[in-house]
């Protein structure tokens, strides 16, 4: 029987197996940040265990960093201490840190791909559930807890059960203004938030084959929102072209040699998945969420479903919505374009294409938070900054920002925020804040209209760069 892409990469990393138990999986790259690493460093220190492979670890500061005045000392004492702790831990253990202000600083899942650290066939982990993002490269990448961060520090391996295999296939032609974010929100709305639990999900079909790397990252990023540990897409020409010339990508003959291997990373025709789902691309429309988990999504033109269930009703009560309500024309005062889901250059290009020549509505506060310093520079270089600032948007400095509101970027109590991030949990963007997840295009249109609207004009391939 043939192997899936996931099997091929996984099996190549198994060091040992415990009888009737987990496997010892070798980890190629370990990404760390300030929030989920300090207790792991502490654990090792207390037990007098050295970090096994510091050169396979990359650190960044992103979750808890301010997005204005990054050159000034951080006001919040606890945040400042957490960042200092990261710096100390990295220095002590000889780990590369792209800290605040560094030209490569940014959200961990934005910087690793853009620097060419993420490569096909690798295993990657990070103490962050959206590590699934890197699966866009045909990489096995998944989030881990802090105890596991300590395990990888100590051994460069993880003790883990091999997940089951799932495949989601989407074929057909996407409608106008349907972005990768809509595709994944649609899939999650159909499958629910726990359909993927226990599985690793391969995305297949022409829709993903024709998607850019950044689009594939958006899709894989949200795999965890249907419970899947990770998502994975077979590497192809798009992947190789993206990687060629990036800072840490192989160079010259090495690159070509790698490509030969990477081309073998495809699911065999006779491979069997534990579960498969298939969707028709033409059924997907621009999406929004109406509830407090990412599975509670609808087409923007649809009304909220009528479901009699206590948890569902609790969720609607939090959001201030009712069954059967249409969300079009709903006034919105906050818009956030950012996060590891949608803060790459293509996201800002598509938003700028819509925004160009328009003005944001007076009631709206619109925050744009680039995923990295490199994205921020690109925004300036391509003239997007001018478009956004002329339109009244606020362009801030890179970081996770209002996606999880650990820093000061919080949506006020009771306010709705149309957000390009990945989670609409209660209070995720600030205590009492109500998150509506959407694509960067829908977010941009919301900021301009000051309310949820359908987009009638067709956004062509953005012309920038």
């Amino acid at each position: 029987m043939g192997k899936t892409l996931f099997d091929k990469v996984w099996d190549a990393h198994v060091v040992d197996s415990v009888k009737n138990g987990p496997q010892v999986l070798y980890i190629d790259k370990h990404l760390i940040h300030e929030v989920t690493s300090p207790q792991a460093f502490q654990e090792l220190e207390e037990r007098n265990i050295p970090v096994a492979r510091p050169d396979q670890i990359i650190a960044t500061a992103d979750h808890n960093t301010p997005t204005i005045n990054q050159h000034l000392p951080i006001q919040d004492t606890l945040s400042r201490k957490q960042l200092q702790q990261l710096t100390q831990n990295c220095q002590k253990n000889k780990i590369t840190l792209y800290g605040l202000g560094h030209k490569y600083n940014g959200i961990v899942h934005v910087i690793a791909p853009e620097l060419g650290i993420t490569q096909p066939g690798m295993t990657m982990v990070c103490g962050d559930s959206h590590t699934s993002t890197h699966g866009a490269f045909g990489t096995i990448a998944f989030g881990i807890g802090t105890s596991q961060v300590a395990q990888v520090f100590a051994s460069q391996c993880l003790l883990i059960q091999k997940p089951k295999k799932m495949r989601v296939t989407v074929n057909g032609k996407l409608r106008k203004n349907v972005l990768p974010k809509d595709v994944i929100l649609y899939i999650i709305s159909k499958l629910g938030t726990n359909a993927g639990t226990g599985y690793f999900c391969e995305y297949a079909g022409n829709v993903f084959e024709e998607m850019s790397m950044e689009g594939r990252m958006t899709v894989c990023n949200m795999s965890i929102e249907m419970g899947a540990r990770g998502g994975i897409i077979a590497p192809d020409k798009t992947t190789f072209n993206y990687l060629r010339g990036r800072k840490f990508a192989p160079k010259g003959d090495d690159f070509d040699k790698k490509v030969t291997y990477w081309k073998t990373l495809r699911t065999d025709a006779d491979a069997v998945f534990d579960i498969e789902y298939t969707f028709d691309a033409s059924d997907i429309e621009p999406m929004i969420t109406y509830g407090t988990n990412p599975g509670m999504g609808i087409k923007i033109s649809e009304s909220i479903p009528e479901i009699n269930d206590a948890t569902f009703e609790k969720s609607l009560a939090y959001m201030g919505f009712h069954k059967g309500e249409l969300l079009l024309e709903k006034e919105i005062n906050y818009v956030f374009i950012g996060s590891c889901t949608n803060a790459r250059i293509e996201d800002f290009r598509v938003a700028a294409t819509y925004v160009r020549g328009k003005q944001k509505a007076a009631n709206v506060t619109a925050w744009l938070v680039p995923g990295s310093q490199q994205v921020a520079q690109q925004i300036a270089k391509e003239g997007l900054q001018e478009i956004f600032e002329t339109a009244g948007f606020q362009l801030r400095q890179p970081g996770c920002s209002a996606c999880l509101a650990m820093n000061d970027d919080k949506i006020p109590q009771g306010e709705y925020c149309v957000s390009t991030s990945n989670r609409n949990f209660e209070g995720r963007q600030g205590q009492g804040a109500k998150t509506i997840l959407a694509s960067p295009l829908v977010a941009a249109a919301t900021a301009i209209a000051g309310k949820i609207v359908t987009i009638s004009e067709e956004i062509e391939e953005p012309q920038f760069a």
Partner: protein
Amino acid sequence: MEKLTTILSTAIPLPTENVDTDQIIPARFLKATDKQGFGDNLFRDWRFDKEGNINKNFVLNDSRFSGNILIAGNNFGCGSSREHAAWALADYGFKVIISSFFADIFKGNALNNGLLPIQVPEKYLNQLLAKVTEKPSTELAVNLEQQTLKTPVGEIPFEIDPYKKTCLLNGYDDIDFLISKKEKIEAFETVRLSQ
């Protein structure tokens, strides 16, 4: 890690489904650099309002309910990988969480902190939630060695990875095990680097 063998306790019912780790411990409490004290902020925004007043309607503030077992709705622990959620539950005093379904990362984090997730069929869960809600003094007995959960709703077996079971029973963790594999790991690296 503390050993876990048998637990006899009353339980706290939380029938809400899809309880995510942002609810268990909101992000603004993740700024600490050690593992202490997270229990104070467990379910913070459900236990207290924005002004810090106690929400009397939330089950953890209901004096009728106590114990070190939490019975939760389907898909408990979804969302963020933050282990702070497991630390908060353990620090608050929970030793066992019963649900009909657990999110992957949370389940692993719980086991790595001596917190036992017990998955039961949905029907059993609903009956148990109803029973405990109606009679808060109901006692539940967990036997990890036997892998059984005994309640007035019935005695049922539960599953656990045999390796993880050994770890919990003995208070071992994965780091010791992985370090014992050092030679194999190095041999693997040698082969891998030559490819």
